[in-house]
């Protein structure tokens, strides 16, 4: 597996640049620092795993990069947009270019897998026709080994199958950045491998970048880089 060095990339090739990022919960009078002077760069076409103990600040960093929280101090540039002081509408625009994979599938029980994917496709600048949507959804579901479940609702699927639908939802619009939190936790080894292959394929084919939080050391070998965080700091960029 070719390892990438993001420090040698031009700015156009950079997906995420976090510089000197601090973040604290609590009140101004009684702040509880979570991130301390975090620097992280993620190049397009790069697959980075973020690891570290609980409470290290991985999730907070992910939510900041995903424009799900506002930057308090420092700078985070995602897909060319500075997130610091970015208004809500701008954050929303950035989020539309990101594929989010959460630990929970969070699927609507009333929607079939296809309807879930089609709903996500409606966020795209150009809304696909029904046939085009069906074709794209079918191809992606097939790549995830889910071709037989395109019209199944969550109630008809196993936990792993639901998670794969959620992963398909995150990838259906070919996001430029994929942010994943333990995406393979509920999957067996075979399914986990398929998911990683799909994410890798998106990285190679669409030039996307992926940042994945995981404790699964088996996945470390497939990443371009493994970044370790401890006590709110990046301690071990590989």
């Amino acid at each position, binding site marked *: 597996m070719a390892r990438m060095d993001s420090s040698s990339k031009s700015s156009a090739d950079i997906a995420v640049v976090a510089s000197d990022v601090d973040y604290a919960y609590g009140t101004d009078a009684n702040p509880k620092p979570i991130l301390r002077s975090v620097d992280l760069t993620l190049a397009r076409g790069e697959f980075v795993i973020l690891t570290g103990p609980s409470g290290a600040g991985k999730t907070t960093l992910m939510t900041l990069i995903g424009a799900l929280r506002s930057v308090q101090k420092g700078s985070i540039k995602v897909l060319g947009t500075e997130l610091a002081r970015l208004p809500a509408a701008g954050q929303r625009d950035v989020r539309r270019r990101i594929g989010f994979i959460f630990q929970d599938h969070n699927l*609507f029980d009333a929607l079939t897998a296809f309807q879930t994917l089609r709903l996500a496709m*409606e966020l795209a600048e150009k809304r696909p026709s029904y046939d085009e949507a069906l074709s794209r959804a079918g191809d992606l579901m097939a790549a995830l080994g889910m071709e037989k479940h395109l*019209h199944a609702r969550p109630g008809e699927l196993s936990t792993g199958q639901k998670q794969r639908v959620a992963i398909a939802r995150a990838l259906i619009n070919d996001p430029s950045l994929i942010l994943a939190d333990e995406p393979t936790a509920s999957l067996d080894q075979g399914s986990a491998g398929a998911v990683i292959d799909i994410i890798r394929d998106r990285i190679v084919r669409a030039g996307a970048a992926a940042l994945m939080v995981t404790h699964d050391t088996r996945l470390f070998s497939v990443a371009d880089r493994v970044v370790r965080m401890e006590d709110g700091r990046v301690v071990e960029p590989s």
Partner: protein
Amino acid sequence: MRWRDWLPLQHPPGIGVRLIAFNRLRLLAAFAGIGVAVAVMFVEFGLLMGILNSQSLMATLVRGELVVVNEARTNLHKWDSMNRIRLNQIAADPDVERVIPVYLGNMGLRDPATNSVRRILVVAFPSGELPFAIGDPDAVARALRSPNTVLFDRLSRPIYPDIVADGEAELNGLSYRVAGYVDLGPDIIHDGAIVMSDASWFQRNPNARPIMGVIRLAEGADTDAVRERLIAALPDDVSFFTPEELRQREFDFTLRSAPIGILFGIGMLAGLVIGSITCYQILFNEIVDRLKQYATLKAMGFSEVFLRGIIIEQALLLACGGFLGGLIFAWGSYIYIADRTALAVTLSVPSVLLIFFMAAGMSVVAALIALRRVVTADPAELY
């Protein structure tokens, strides 16, 4: 493949409808809850309108362009009579084709089976002229031409003895021939009515004075101009109204003089509040049950406007379903109430539209309150 898959998700039936319709039993329970509130509004409104319409029935049925009454007669159930000469003065106007005097009174109708006597309204007018739309004018004229002949109001409440056409009816101890029927209808004060010619009425009440006059104008006459002329020419002991004005005056008087507007208004408000709370509770539960999913949509980049649209869509579905259920219940209730009370309780297009918009408004307000919860869905909490 189901037909719903072909429909775009962001347009009706969109995601909101799909979500709330997924649990059919819960949806039916929601429809039932809101339907009860809608039915309460319908019944309260129907009773109010039934009373108002019944009280103003005579104005509604007038066959003429203007009505003249004693200036002191503040409502149709206050029988201040007029000087007969006023009608003659009105008839002298070149644009007035005819003035029909109307006499009102009460008589006692005896039930031969029980010997009990019940009060009944008497409406009298010249036999050749029908001042109210209560039957075929020619048939009424023919029937009333014979002396001591009456027509029975078949819409009277069923408290009177069976009145058979060509039979006899005993009124104030005197026998009258019943020549047939008219359709007038009772109100809150009167349970029923009979119609007779003024000649028959004069036989019992030789000094009777008209209670109102129905004025028919010549073809092409300007009603307002004629009224202005009549007001200028006559003393101010009489007032002139168009039938619609008279009806509206009766509405206003009834609402002002009796607290029925407040009573039924509170009833409708109760329905509105019950419906709003029910709708809010249903929507709130829907939102809370799917808060993580809504947070996911926000994380993906869907706007709060889109999320609000989902909830409003659900609210409108609840309003429509509840409204239909309530309408069906109200329809049955109206038939029952009209049958039992003989009041003019009817489902009219304006009343149906009014209640529909109230139901829709109620649901949207409930949605606006409930969707504050969806705004709190924090996508950052998903990681």
